[in-house]
């Protein structure tokens, strides 16, 4: 199966993961992303920032994946925050009221600063 989403992980500082996604976060890529979240949490980098700048489309499976990642991170004592979401993801966050579940940041830098108490 062709890869439909790009996933890059970085460790900007101790305990923090930056997960950059690009492409479609939907039924075709949800499992791969869920695995990536599980991997960084298992690595004790459970304060996660997800960079959505490159995500062009998200569906209900993608939303569920983000919620699953949030739950996994919080169970490990961390959190999962979203940054730089585009128009279509933001519309669905609002529609589903998930914008009240996640912390949404305009930029990755602001999300990272949030973890560092700036």
């Amino acid at each position: 199966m062709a890869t439909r989403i790009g996933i890059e992980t970085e460790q900007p500082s101790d305990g923090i993961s930056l997960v950059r996604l690009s492409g479609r976060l939907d039924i075709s890529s949800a499992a791969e992303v869920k695995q990536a979240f599980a991997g960084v949490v298992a690595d004790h980098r459970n304060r996660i920032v997800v960079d959505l700048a490159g995500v062009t489309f998200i569906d209900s499976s993608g939303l569920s994946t983000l919620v699953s990642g949030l739950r996994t991170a919080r169970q490990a004592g961390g959190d999962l925050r979203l940054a730089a979401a585009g128009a279509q993801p933001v519309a669905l966050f609002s529609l589903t009221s998930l914008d009240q579940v996640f912390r949404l940041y305009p930029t990755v830098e602001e999300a990272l600063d949030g973890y560092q108490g700036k």
Partner: protein
Amino acid sequence: MATRASDDVPMFEDQREIAATMDGLDTVHRHLAEFWLRLETDNRIAPDETWKVLFESAVAEVAGNIIRHAHPPSVFFMSLRAFPDRIESVLLDQGIPYQLVPVRPSADMRTALTEPDMDHGWGLAIAHAVTDGIVYSRLESGHNRWVIEKNLPA
């Protein structure tokens, strides 16, 4: 909500046969992108980006459901139709009949999406919320038929 699905003759229609696989989802998005382009070029209709991505969300949710329930190798048919007042998509597949759960209001979606044992079905709730009508019917031919419609901005 009933659609007008309709005896109207569309100004423009484009139908594709699409593999009921994850690769088929790529075709769904490509089909939509090409449709928007032709709609603007040939028919001078250009809904804004938000309108288009919401319609695309609904179509992708229904197509995802079809693919999820398909037994490959199989295909489904997807039409996109432009009318003066709305855009429609009609999807036909030969899968088993759907047992649809009642669509809950969007206020319940957050709860459902955050339940640990969340099941599928919420995609259709999203699809309903972003369109002006979705009707599912089981045809005598053994096809499932989905009609999705969204009114064009006034």
